[in-house]
């Protein structure tokens, strides 16, 4: 079941989301009433000090983690209590994921890795499509390479191609440049920027890196599980300053 977001409806939205980790004395409120939206066709970066809850926010938005309060919407559909088969269906067609540790399947070639989500969704795999997606990330000549034969930046681009092959409504990226050198990181970020600008792709990205966040259309700042600030059209310097302020804030 593929969902095309309607005009004006955010690709992904959280409403007053609460998420606790642990139980008893060890209970930590990772998200404390967070409300925010990832608008269609734009790139939103989520930043914050370590432990601010940014990864949890991404997990909750993608339906990977259950929330303890509030609602989660994906392309206008309430997925807060969606059963597993609905979430599985959404992961197949509506969401894409990119990780810090590329998470490619080591035994499969780049081409096979990219084709995998289509196969899992039971769709006919067109080799031409797969090749086109790989070519669009600049890896048209690396089809038959296995992950271990590729550099970190190339692996991450394969991972992006894999996430994009199903044309998802929203791409969730968790520290996509965290394991990359600066040149590779720039290539990957430019690739994401192009996808947003040319294809109107929605991107939700968690990052530590102000330079990475500066590529986004907007940056939201989390601290202790709350949304504390927001920057539109950010520059790396602005982001770094805000982040430094947050990290220096007394606990």
């Amino acid at each position: 079941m593929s969902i095309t977001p309607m005009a004006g409806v955010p690709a992904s939205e959280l409403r007053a989301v609460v998420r606790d980790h642990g139980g008893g004395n060890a209970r930590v409120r990772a998200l404390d009433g967070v409300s925010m939206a990832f608008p269609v066709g734009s790139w939103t970066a989520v930043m914050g000090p370590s432990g601010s809850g940014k990864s949890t926010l991404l997990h909750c938005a993608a339906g990977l983690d259950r929330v303890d309060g509030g609602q989660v919407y994906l392309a206008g559909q309430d997925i807060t209590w969606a059963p597993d088969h609905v979430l599985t269906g959404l992961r197949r067609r509506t969401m894409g994921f990119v990780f810090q540790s590329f998470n490619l399947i080591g035994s499969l070639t780049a081409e096979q890795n990219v084709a995998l989500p289509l196969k899992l969704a039971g769709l006919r795999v067109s080799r031409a499509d797969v090749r086109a997606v790989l070519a669009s990330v600049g890896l048209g000549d690396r089809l038959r390479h296995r992950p271990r034969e590729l550099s970190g930046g190339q692996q991450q681009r394969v991972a992006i191609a894999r996430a994009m092959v199903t044309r998802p409504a929203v791409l969730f990226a968790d520290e996509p440049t965290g394991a990359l050198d600066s040149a590779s990181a720039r290539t990957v970020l430019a690739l994401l920027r192009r996808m947003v600008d040319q294809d109107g792709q929605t991107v939700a990205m968690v990052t530590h890196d102000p330079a990475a966040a500066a590529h986004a259309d907007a940056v939201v700042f989390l601290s202790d599980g709350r949304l504390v600030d927001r920057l539109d059209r950010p520059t790396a310097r602005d982001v770094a300053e805000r982040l430094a302020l947050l990290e220096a804030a007394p606990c």
Partner: protein
Amino acid sequence: MLTVSLHTFREHRRLFAGAVTAVALGVALVQASLLVMISADRAPLPPGLTGRAREELREDYAGAATVLGMTLMLATFLTIFIVSSTFAFTVAQRRRELALLRLLGGGRAGLVALLLGEALLLGTVGTAIGIIVGIPAMWLQALLMIRLGFLPDGFSPGWDAGVLFVSPCIGIGVSLVGVLAAARRAAKVRPLDAMRDVGAAARVMTPARWLSGVSCLALTIWMVTLAQSADLLGALLLGIGICIMGSVALSALSPLVVPLTGRALGLLLRRTTLGELAQAELRDGVRRSASTAAPLIVLVALLVGLTGTLGSLALMAGEEQRRLVNGHLVVTSTGADAERIASVPGVAVASTELSVEISVRARHHRQGRSSGRTHYGGIIAVDATAYRRTHHLQPHAGSLRRLHGRTIAVGPGLAAEGIRVGSTATAAIDGRKVRVKVVAALAPTLENYSERFLIPRDLIPPDARAAAPARTVVRTAPGVAPSTVASALRKAGIGEVETVAQWADGRAAAQQRMNIGILAVLMGMAGGYAAVAVVNAVVIAGSERRTEFAAARVAGLTRGQVVRAALIESWAVTAIGLALGCTVAAGALSGMLAASLRAVDRPLVAVPWTLLAAITLASFAVTSLASVWTTRAATKPTPITQLGARE
């Protein structure tokens, strides 16, 4: 999905090689036992044999079929146990990869299909190898049985095309069933686990595991309590049941037991840094430890438990014989020499039992059916009066007093065959048919091959009596030391003289030799299979720990230290497996202890210490070698390449 299956094969070579080995050896073992059993069942009796030889041969084959039936049962149990534990382990080792598939949109059903597809592939490959390996295994099994005297010399097992159907059913069936539970569990993997280094949902004690573990444990405890009040045969059967159920229970619950024992061992290990690391790994890698310990538990429980149970039974049979015989000495001689015993000074009573070459045809009544059968072996001729004075045997029907003239008594060996007292049997003595009346039936004894018929010695012609092998129980006159009489008997050149105790011990030892033969057949190849499973688990565990080992080396450990820490860990797991196996075996033997206390008022339990020591040494040797080899192989590349290669 199958293409993904095929591709992941290459990535997890060792993991899958382990699974294929488990299936192949299991199929080979089951197929070998099955083929030898079929061949023994169909073996033709050569023409021109005497009745006695025919009976012996037929009994050989029947005995072999019983032993092979038990072997088959045990082999099937081990195959199911080892294959399912190996498959569960291979699935558990790939948790992260499976979570990633879920994250990419793989549904639960798809994941189950993927794992079943893999199991089908592995099962098919394993079965194909197993069918081929099963042929030499069949020859080995037959050779073993011939060597141990269960099958006649000329026996040769044959091929039966039926196994081409049975073996795939077992191999593929067991693989699919074995992986099903693991697959269903793996399907519950949360996609989120792919984003984390350590799956938070890596719960080892699943509800299903709790259920099977606790119910098997309850069943085991119930059987142990039942065994306390069972008769000997009951205790023996329960002992086998306890060994099997107990192994399953403790294997299922070992994730609970292993860390607990690890904590106890920790007091010992914590003195050194490496020991501390090993203890932490033991606690952390619960599933790994449990998978290695499981085949060890089964191996020790079955070997020690069964050997001990059968050995105790032999001890008790010997004790029973000692008590049944009311005399001082036992003389083994010819019938002619036995005639002279009564005249030796100091002999008060001499009761001679002659093993005579006659046949008896009698009607059996069992389970509402009656049939005539001819018996050749186990027929002794006695003087009823002397026999009664030297034996405490009580007939459970009729009376030995009436055993004179044309009569016969049913011995303990046929007590359960339903030959009625008062019926008429036909004895063929020297080619002459004599109709004899059944006047008594003796109660059964613990011995396997005891006398079947007692007939009055007067019925046997004197020359046949003189030639027959004889065993004479001697009671000495009051005030005369048995040793004096023994030397007098020896001086007179009458056969071989033993005290009753020596004779009974000899019989127990002979029974025990027979038992060891049975166990060698039962456990010989099965034991090897379990040993392979232990190595398998160590190798699988080691080869999937490259990153962990690399991290330890980056933290400052040398390669040698990593190898040593893993070695200490494997020692601890081995010790735990052995201890748990011994616990199960002790449960099985406790039934024998209670039964012996009730039957003979003495604790008679044969704990096979030598076997236990041998198993302990062998287990440590095997797990140590496997651990060192896999850890060295896993730490060969430099640690940094291992840590970087995180796809």
